[in-house]
């Protein structure tokens, strides 16, 4: 693809360019993560990069931040063509990155975190006074106020993010990359963040804002570049587009729809959760009085901003965490006191939120990963011994049936692309006729084709009577797949929503607690 139209830009004069990427292509095993990416970030603007999960946004930003080198294409920073070998190179060129998952040391103070790796010294000692002065100065200048002497573990999410931004500014960044910065924030914090971004912009800094939340992008960005399937498909101004048009650009004209056809919900309750509560080791309530029922053939969706107890709910249902009170029934049997292994043997499947952390042995071959989670069952294990032939044959079946792209079942799991790893996990968890599937972000980070395939699989299993607890940050997916929907906020289920009538906007409002009243709760729960 050649460079297509630099979209209508009648701006006054040639605006100075902060960062320009031309023809960036990056290949990974089995996939081309980025191809022919062209982006030009004007100095003193917020430039949003939008795209679906797995469209290649993070890969692109890793390229710009020097975490890996592109196979083709050039990077120019402030007009000068550069080759970035490491993040240190990028930082030296004034490019800083705020990661989606904060990289802070909890037991350090704000000052210590900010200066870590760039410590001002006085002789051999850390020059705390200079550091504090500079941090306060940055705070005043850009409206990023944080107590420099506070311990990071005592800070809230919004403050931690400010610390991350200060850290980047402290190192002299003139271009900031923010990767999904709002994913963990509540609405007020989002407003504060946007205020700070405007301040930074006014001072001549440039921001690259990665997101898939379109309303936020439209609110804060000056320019928007859309990435689809690894390449740039459009560059637009927020004034010229609607959220709907942006969404169409993101997914292409033919949207794979997560819509389920007709209801397969039965009146047999598979999972019943009653008054379930969970307390953290330091006594905070993580889950409070959770009540839910999932019937055979039903998908129950849990909507909520990440970090409101969804992960804890899944881990409690899986037996990894011990509930403080309440009961869990599976198929009428009380499993509250059961171990994780017993629950899995009873037919609970689990698609983890973070597949490499909770779902795979990266340094083991695929067929051993087939065994994981099913170590006590055929065809993997017989009389306490690993049945290599059985496990290998069944792994080959999964590879064939679920279209896992791999040359063999003997390669290490780390050699597969994320989407193929995910398909392997889905195939594994669908094996052995599960009764209940705990699916956390089942299509996160997979490509569009795999996403549609996974949706099909979930629908098919549901039609055969599988009960599914679905947790997803993708509201379209939640609304489309769920038979009933509940909203989770600060460890509580605060509203029932009818997926047949709710819009993503209404759901979003309910999730943030801005509107947790009953006007969206039109009685979604079946039977």
């Amino acid at each position: 693809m050649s460079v297509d139209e630099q979209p209508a830009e009648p701006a006054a004069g040639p605006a100075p360019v902060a960062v320009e990427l031309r023809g960036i292509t990056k290949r990974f095993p089995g996939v081309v993560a980025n191809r022919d990416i062209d982006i030009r970030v004007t100095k003193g603007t917020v430039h949003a990069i939008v795209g679906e999960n797995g469209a290649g946004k993070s890969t692109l930003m890793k390229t710009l931040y020097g975490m890996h080198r592109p196979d083709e294409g050039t990077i120019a920073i402030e007009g000068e063509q550069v080759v970035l070998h490491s993040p240190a190179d990028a930082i030296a060129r004034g490019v800083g990155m705020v990661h989606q998952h904060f990289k802070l040391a909890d037991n350090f103070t704000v000052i210590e975190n900010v200066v870590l790796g760039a410590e001002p010294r006085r002789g051999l000692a850390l020059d705390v006074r200079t550091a504090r002065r500079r941090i306060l100065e940055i705070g005043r200048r850009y409206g990023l106020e944080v107590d420099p002497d506070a311990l990071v573990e005592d800070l809230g999410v919004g403050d931690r993010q400010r610390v991350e931004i200060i850290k980047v500014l402290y190192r002299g960044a003139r271009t900031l990359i923010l990767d999904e910065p709002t994913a963990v924030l509540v609405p007020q914090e989002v407003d504060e963040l946007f205020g700070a971004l405007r301040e930074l912009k006014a001072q001549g800094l440039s921001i690259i804002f990665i997101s898939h939340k379109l309303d936020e992008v439209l609110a804060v960005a000056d320019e928007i570049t859309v990435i689809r399937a690894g390449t740039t498909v459009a560059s637009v101004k927020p004034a010229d587009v609607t959220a709907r048009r942006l969404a169409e650009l993101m997914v292409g004209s033919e949207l794979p729809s997560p819509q389920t056809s007709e209801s397969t919900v039965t009146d047999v309750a598979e999972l019943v959760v009653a008054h379930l509560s969970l307390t953290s080791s330091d006594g905070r309530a993580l889950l409070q009085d959770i009540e839910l029922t999932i019937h055979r053939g039903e998908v129950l969706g849990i909507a909520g901003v990440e970090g409101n107890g969804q992960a804890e709910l899944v881990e409690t249902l899986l037996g990894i965490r011990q509930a403080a009170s309440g009961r869990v029934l599976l198929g009428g049997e009380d499993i509250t006191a059961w171990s994780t292994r017993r629950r899995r043997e009873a037919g609970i499947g689990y698609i983890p939120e973070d597949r490499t952390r909770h779902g795979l042995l990266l340094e083991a071959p695929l067929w051993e990963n087939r065994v994981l989670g099913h170590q006590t069952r055929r065809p993997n294990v017989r009389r306490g011994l690993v049945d290599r032939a059985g496990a290998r044959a069944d792994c080959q079946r999964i590879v064939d049936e679920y279209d896992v792209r791999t040359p063999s079942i003997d390669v290490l799991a780390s050699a597969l692309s994320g989407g193929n790893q995910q398909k392997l996990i889905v195939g594994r968890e669908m094996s052995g006729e599960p009764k209940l599937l705990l699916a956390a972000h089942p299509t996160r980070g997979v490509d569009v084709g795999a996403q549609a395939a996974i949706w099909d699989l979930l629908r098919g299993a549901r039609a055969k009577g599988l009960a599914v607890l679905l947790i997803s940050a993708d509201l379209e997916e939640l609304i489309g797949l769920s038979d009933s929907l509940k909203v989770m906020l600060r460890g509580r289920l605060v509203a029932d929503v009818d997926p047949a009538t709710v819009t993503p906007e209404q759901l979003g409002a309910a999730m943030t607690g801005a509107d947790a009243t009953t006007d969206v709760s039109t009685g979604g729960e079946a039977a």
Partner: protein
Amino acid sequence: MSISRRVALGVAAPLLAIVFSLLVTSVVLLFTGAQPLETFQAMVQYAGRPRTQVLIINSATTYYFAAVAVAIGFRMNLFNIGVDGQYRLAALVSAALGGALHLPRVLHVGVVILSAMLVGAAWAGFAGYLKVRRGVSEVISTIMLNFVATAGIAYLLAPGRLAVTTQGSNNLGTRPIPESGQVGGLPLVPGTPLKVYGLVVLAVIVGAAFWFVINRTRFGFDLRATGMNEAAAVASGVDVRKMVVAAMVLSGAVAGLVGMPQLLGASYTYSLDFPAGLGFTGIAIALLGRNHPVGIAVGALLWGFLDNSSQILNLRDVPVEIVQITQGVIVLSVVVAYELVRRYRVSAVQRDVGRRLAESPPPGGDGPPAAAATQGAST
């Protein structure tokens, strides 16, 4: 990646480490005024003698138990530094027991070995219990327990307790184990009256059992899974607390065997001069042998060679301690070399997979959802 290439990569790291350490040793030898090549040659020649060969095998047998004990922990990311205390305590208790009993031949040996395994298992299991119940790192607790074991042995190894005095010597030891509890040597090497420890057979059995349990049983799978990715193991239903205790108990049981070749095959008593420090040798050999039963065997033999053939250096006015430099450098460089090879292997496999997927259409024809996947992306 082909099998031959995998094997080549597996051997590359220890080989590199050994070559590198020989280079470093050569430099040190030059500083001390010795000729490196001649020195090495003398060691190899000395090792060619039947007597030295027996000594090498006997040392290696002992080292092998120690290294397998450490490796069991390593496979689960547990660092059992306490093998040292475990085997000394086990040897003392079982020696005292063996000296006090009068049993038929096979049974007597069995009781001594079993009691040693139980004592080792209990001592290591205590560290496992502390980790699971109290969150004490096994690194700390096993080191501490080494000191406790040393103090305990000093207390117990006294006349009137477990020790008896021998006439004409100021050595203290347990009552000698009678002949029914001794394990005879094997005349494996011709040309010397020295015999190989009979328990070399037990070492082979333990090695085979270690391989089988780790690679072929469900328990071994759970253990390896926990070592590779604890969070994923927990989600898969592994009870990590139980596994920690089980792994420590097993590791300690094998540690209990470390003193057995010496006790049942040579000294028949646990005395003040019973060999100490073998647990640390075991750590080095487990690292060198990559926690693999065959690798450990090679490492144990190499260590035995260095320890025994170096005795010739005394006659050549070269300090014997030079060998410890070689051993130290081997361990340090092997850790670095393994990490380099591991990284190379991971990226080589990824490239390999990418290339093979790119040049061939997906196996088994195109399923319905296959169309879109090639243009996808990973994040």
